[in-house]
């Protein structure tokens, strides 16, 4: 592994998730990338948009489809010092979900807040 870069001011980097958990492995890959990114001491945040809010749902048991549970690993994020975790309000409501259904405490954002969050970043990694 190359040396972790140290910059004077951490860069704001947003991970944007848009995929449901198991139909595309991009959901898992986004989480792996986020965990790896946490070693670089940047200002990281993660946003779950659209179908990606299904990643956060409790009681996932994907053993029979030969996958590892995203819901099991997501709660590790705060331990990796990733605490700015956001979900799209309309994505939750149109899917009949509330924050009590989720494996992680998330901050729920409306459209304007999402635009502001994206606009304030130094870089966005889209998954």
């Amino acid at each position, binding site marked *: 592994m190359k040396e972790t870069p140290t910059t004077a001011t951490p860069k704001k980097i947003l991970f944007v998730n*848009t995929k449901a958990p198991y139909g595309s492995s991009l959901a898992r890959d986004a989480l792996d990338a986020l965990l790896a990114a946490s070693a670089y001491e940047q200002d990281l945040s993660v946003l779950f948009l659209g179908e990606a809010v299904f990643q956060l749902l409790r009681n996932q048991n994907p053993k029979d489809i030969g996958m590892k549970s995203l819901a099991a690993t997501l709660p590790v994020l705060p331990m990796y010092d990733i605490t700015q975790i956001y979900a799209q309000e*309309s994505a939750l409501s149109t899917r009949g979900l509330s924050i009590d259904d989720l494996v992680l405490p998330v901050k729920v954002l409306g459209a304007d807040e999402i*635009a*502001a969050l*994206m*606009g*304030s970043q130094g870089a*966005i990694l*889209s998954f």
Partner: protein
Amino acid sequence: MSLLHTVNKSPFSKDTLLNCLAICQAKHSVLLIEDGVYGALKSSPCREQIEQLSAMGVRFFALSADVSARGIDENLIADVTLASDQDFVNLVVKNNVTQSWY
């Protein structure tokens, strides 16, 4: 802050473009690429939103190579400007960040 969105799915089968438009604001730009260019058709299910947002200051582009590839050059919404690959690069450079919607 300026933001570029790229969208690569057709709105006739996916809600990707709709999701993108839902958070678009004045000063944002939207570049339709790959199957996303079908969203620029006059018959696009998102036509009304595109025209409304365009009037509010959102700029819309479609990647010309993808438009030509699909034979839809003649049927695009007037508010959508064709963009070359160089224009794509310039859009990325001019906007602070890019969110890619798949």
